[in-house]
């Protein structure tokens, strides 16, 4: 009986070790470990863009693909596994995997993609990448283009998450001739009164990525509030626009992958990640919702409508 168990353990160990051996051997260190945090199709688009860019640059890397979900234990195991396999670099897609890698691995270069903000990469000594969020200047410039009459921009934020962001945003908004009215929200129960405050003064509501406020559970409430109060809401993405936000700035996910690919190429050619500044998306599109525009009696110039990538 003991012999059978021993044999079984040996067999399992061999089955685990053999692929690692092959993977390590195949690369000689041409291996790129990929850690994907979501099954969302945009992640696949970004990965395809990344691979295509490197392929076009004649980089023949071996890709070791890993998926992580919210399970801490599995994520930990996967990161340990990557660490042991010693890839030439790690390409992370999504903040779940990125944060786990940044916490555990400091000696392998990391290129991060599809993380909300590139700021988090600045804390790391071995990571760079491209954030999802557009620079504040870009966001406010677009706001002025699409809503030229809007002067007071309302925003809800959780101080535990976004104080620095709001300070920067206020400064930049002021520079662009806008007034940012930022209302603190500590719990979801604070949101009704915070929204009521904004309804009295805001010409538009800026949807700031804030996990407390713009969560799936709160989205419907905020969208309905904006809709009923006829205040244009600037959504976080196309899904928000489809649901009723006036517009959102959009990314090209394949190009985000390419943008990360160009960073990976520099690292492949022995540049240190710290020498490559984290970046923001280089291509900008936007989606608009004409039903919402009509509801709030906002007449958008034809040029704005025609140039939109998606019109609802």
């Amino acid at each position, binding site marked *: 009986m003991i012999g059978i168990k021993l044999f079984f353990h040996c067999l399992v160990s061999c089955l685990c070790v053999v692929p690692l051996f092959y993977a390590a051997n195949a690369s000689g260190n041409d291996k790129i470990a990929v850690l994907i945090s979501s099954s969302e199709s945009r992640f696949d688009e970004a990965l395809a863009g990344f691979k295509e860019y490197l392929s076009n640059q004649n980089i023949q890397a071996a890709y070791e693909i890993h998926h992580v979900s919210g399970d801490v234990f599995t994520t930990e195991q996967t990161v340990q596994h990557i660490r042991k396999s010693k890839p030439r670099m790690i390409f992370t897609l999504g903040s779940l995997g990125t944060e786990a890698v940044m916490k555990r691995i400091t000696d392998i270069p990391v290129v991060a993609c599809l993380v909300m903000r590139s700021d988090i990469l600045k804390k790391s000594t071995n990571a760079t990448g491209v954030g999802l969020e557009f620079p504040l200047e870009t966001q406010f410039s677009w706001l002025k283009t699409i809503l030229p009459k809007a*002067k007071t921009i309302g925003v809800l934020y959780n101080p535990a998450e976004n104080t620095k962001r709001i300070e920067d945003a206020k400064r930049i908004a002021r520079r662009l001739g806008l007034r940012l009215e930022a209302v*603190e929200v*500590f719990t979801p129960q604070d*949101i009704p*009164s915070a929204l009521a405050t904004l309804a009295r003064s805001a010409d538009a509501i800026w949807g700031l990525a804030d996990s407390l406020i713009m969560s799936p559970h709160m989205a*419907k*409430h905020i969208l309905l509030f904006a809709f009923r109060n006829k205040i244009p809401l600037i959504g976080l993405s196309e899904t928000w626009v489809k649901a009723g936000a006036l517009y959102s700035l959009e990314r090209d996910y394949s190009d985000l992958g390419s943008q990360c690919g160009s960073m990976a190429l520099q690292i492949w050619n022995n540049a240190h990640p710290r020498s490559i500044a984290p970046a923001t998306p280089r291509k900008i599109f936007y989606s608009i919702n004409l039903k919402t525009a009509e509801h709030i009696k906002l007449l958008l110039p034809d040029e704005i409508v025609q140039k939109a990538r998606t019109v609802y």
Partner: protein
Amino acid sequence: MITAFVIMIASFQNSRAESGSPAAPVSASEEALLFQEIPSVYSASKYEQKVTEAPSSVSIVTASDIKKYGYRTLADVLRGVRSFFVTYDRNYNYVGVRGFGRPADYNNRILLLIDGHRTNDNLYDMAFIGTDGILDVDIIDRVEIIRGPGSSLYGSNALFAVVNVITKRGRDLKGMEVSGEAARYDTYKGRLSYGDRYSNGIEALFSGTVYDSKGPSLFFPEYNSPTTNHGLTSGTDYDRFHSLFVKTSYRDFTLQAASLSRIKGIPTGSFETDFNNPDNRTRDQRAYLDLQYDHAITAKNQVSARLFYDYYKYTGDYITSGVTNKDRGLGEWWGGEIKLSSRSFNNHRLIVGTEYTFNNHLDQRNHDVYPYGVYLDDQRRSEFWAAYIQDEITLIRKKLVFNAGLRYDNYNTFTDTLNPRLALIYTPWGKSIFKALFGTAFRAPSPFELYYQSPTNSPNADLKPERISTYEVVYEQYLGDHCRATAAGFFYKIYNLIDQMETAPGSGITIFRNLGQIQSHGFEIELENKWANGIEGRISYAFQKTVDLATDGILSNSPEHMVKANLILPLWRNKLFAGVEQQYTSLRKTIDNSYTSEFFITNITLFAQRMAKGLELSASVYNVFNTRYSDPVSADFMPVTAVQQDQRAYRVKLTYAF
């Protein structure tokens, strides 16, 4: 206002329950905020959270409903709502709720608010809901109808319901809007409105309405004699008004002003006046000014304050045997209110507030012009103050909400009163809500009931406040995203009912007295749905048995059964709609213990929008099947006990925004 806010808060508490602990720092999957699927706002069915989480049974009628069902007045709005019925004595409209509707009670058992401003006047406590309503229904954003006793927050008059009308804002118009309508009986109405929100943050809305109706010719069998034109009257049911509404806001301040002047002919020969005399008429002039301040002190603490001034003048010309009797009422009052709401304590939402009202004029006068004779010249002042507290406590993993409120009112005209309300709201599963509610409410006797004297009415200064205790259970079940079923059972008892009666049978002189106790029980069921293809509708049935405990008989003007069905059908894209309404009311007892017949009413409206830029058209037919029916009236109308209502009528309306 407070209730609406509480309701909204409650919905967010549920959201928190669902989302775990959202106060945690940045989520590792923050980018999910971009990719999440979000339900579209276009499919949201009205204000479902407000309705579901309220510590009462709530209905909401939106501006869209008003357009698509062709509602002309607030009375039309309320007529379409579960458990409400409206009677019309061809001068004023009176609301009945849950089997209780006293003809000529001036709607003083419901509280009518406009943007939180109390509009019941200080002489008759009247809530104006017909063409005497100060607000054109076209500038209503929504009407929140909160059933049950509301005195724990709102004080007097909130016995059966609080009706809060939320008006549109400048941003809802964003420019000029002109509207004209023509209807049967030579009825014409015009409205001009302008509103916008400016880049300096100021928001303004101005709206003026003019209305003129010659009214139908009517037949009253009670007057079918040669001396009274064989019961026929024409040119006496005229109705004219003009009104103005202004609302401006800047940041935390909102200033609102409204006025109305309405002249209405009295075709009924009430108060023993000469039948078929067009000089019998009333004139109601109403105005108010309201300054409101709302400020968030911190994320968890808000303050709201209000200063108001109100004016009401009533003039009645009553011709009896050629003698003109002039009836006058002048009410003027001002006051203020301050309210604090806080969520500083865990699981608690606390509201405390106080208000003060000074009645500067409570003047009533009644005299004959020639030969001159004064029956009443009564001038008074009074004041009252109140303080209230309400706490909403969330328990058992956010599944149970306990709502407790208490209000103390102190009148210098009678003793003080304390009114509680308790509510338990249990949400065992996301889509099932159980509510158990108890509350008391009161109504202070009005100066009219206390002191009015005329050839046909005696005063009674000994009247005591009327009180009601209500018990209610409500079960609400969501079936799918936009289908809601509601079942409610209620029991209420009214003490010291103030009602009008003849001083002696056949005397023709009426008096208000505390008449003892009224008891009622009943239940309501309602199913409403909004389909993805745009069809929406609701159907309800209400049963109520309301008994006068003194006589053990059914109360007059109390229908035992009511059925209502409303349907909106999109006929072509999002441009053409049909709104169909069906209302059934069972027979009602009249003041002489006979019964009015039961009746079905069908109203149909075709509503077109977006056919051309800024243009809206509607065509309505009311009482499509030309049903003949009558509403019970008060003893003032003797020998008439029920007044006939309009037969088939139509209206065409055109609105253009530019």
